[in-house]
């Protein structure tokens, strides 16, 4: 077969085009264990499961707003913040992992002014450990990453304090250390590190406690107001609660797919 110059140029052009789009296709398709991961979804980090560790396919929390009262809320916030050496700073530079907030601030779309009087006025807010976390996608150093079991966790060693994640998080779950937090920690827990100036921090679903086979600290002191378990297991406590009661999530229309559910 005789190759005409015209045909050769056609083949060469198609080849060059294919070669040109190859990196784009790879970037869209790769980056994780599942095909949906890649450029548009955060990749997930495999989790080693130790001998004592609690494990799940998808950790989730259910907050029963009717069971929260002043004492329980106070206990929860206090136990979380002492366990994780969260400094007590007042004003705009405050740092919080879990905190109490008015319902109308938490649920911007779902509530209106004619709610029943008896309903909860406030609830607890914390990191939602989203299925599609914007904070993970914007982090330039991969200091914040998502584990295979769904927990969105921080590697404080890698955080450069750029605060992109704080801009990305629609729930305000992240706090920045504007100053050395150590002078503001009343009682330091030696088992957990403090942070330094210039690092972002947030709730980690007590990943360090799950590895030891313990439930998150807040769940333990919640007197039944918080439930924690595997969303993929139909027999788990969280799934049973979600099947029985009406539940809402914070701003689900944003597409982040939060995994903290509120029973109202």
């Amino acid at each position, binding site marked *: 077969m005789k190759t005409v110059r015209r045909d050769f140029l056609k083949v060469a052009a198609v080849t060059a085009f294919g070669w040109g789009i190859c990196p784009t296709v790879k970037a869209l398709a790769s980056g994780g264990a599942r095909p949906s991961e890649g450029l548009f979804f955060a990749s997930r980090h495999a989790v*080693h499961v130790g001998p004592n560790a609690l494990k799940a396919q998808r950790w989730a929390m259910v907050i029963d707003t009717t069971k929260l009262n002043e004492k329980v809320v106070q206990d929860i916030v206090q136990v979380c913040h002492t366990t994780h050496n969260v400094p007590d700073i007042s004003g705009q530079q405050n740092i919080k992992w879990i905190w109490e907030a008015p319902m109308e601030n938490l649920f911007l779309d779902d509530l209106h002014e004619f709610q029943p009087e008896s309903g909860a006025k406030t609830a607890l807010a914390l990191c939602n450990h989203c299925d599609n976390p914007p904070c993970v996608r914007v982090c330039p150093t991969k200091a914040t990453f998502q584990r295979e079991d769904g927990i969105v966790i921080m590697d404080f060693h890698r955080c450069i304090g750029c605060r992109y994640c704080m801009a990305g998080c629609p729930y305000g779950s992240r706090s920045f250390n504007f100053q050395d937090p150590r002078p503001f920690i009343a009682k330091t827990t030696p*088992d957990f590190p403090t942070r330094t100036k210039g690092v972002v921090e947030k709730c980690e679903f007590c990943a360090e406690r799950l590895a030891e086979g313990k439930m998150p600290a807040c769940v333990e002191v919640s007197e039944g107001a918080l439930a924690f378990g595997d969303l993929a297991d139909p027999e788990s406590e969280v799934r049973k609660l979600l099947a029985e009661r009406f539940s809402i999530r914070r701003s689900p229309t944003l597409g982040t797919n939060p995994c903290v559910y509120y029973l109202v």
Partner: protein
Amino acid sequence: MYHKSKILTGLAVFIIFMTYPFWNNIGSAAYVRPELEKVKKAKECVESVEFMRAEHMSMLNEWRDEVVRDASHEYHSTVNNSVYQKSLTKTCMDCHENKDKFCDKCHDSVAVDPYCWDCHVDPKGVQK
């Protein structure tokens, strides 16, 4: 040679300046390895003493990455068949309790300043 005096003076200044560390230290005592506090709690460390002396910093770096990013908390020792928890404060400083008499001694004498304790808590330091 043009500008002989200037060149020679310049060379002399340069050589004196470059060799300053050598002649400044003439007569001063040689480096002595600091005496570290002995551990009473355990018989042996997670690895041999020689390995720990040379490699503890890279080992701690590896532990840090494995614990935080892979949630792998168990360290399988190669000297004895035990499993240790990969933790600076819970494992290392459980035996080497006194940071001032152990970690800081060598770090100070070789003038390194690791930033471990910027975040990680010295368990004894809390009680002080």
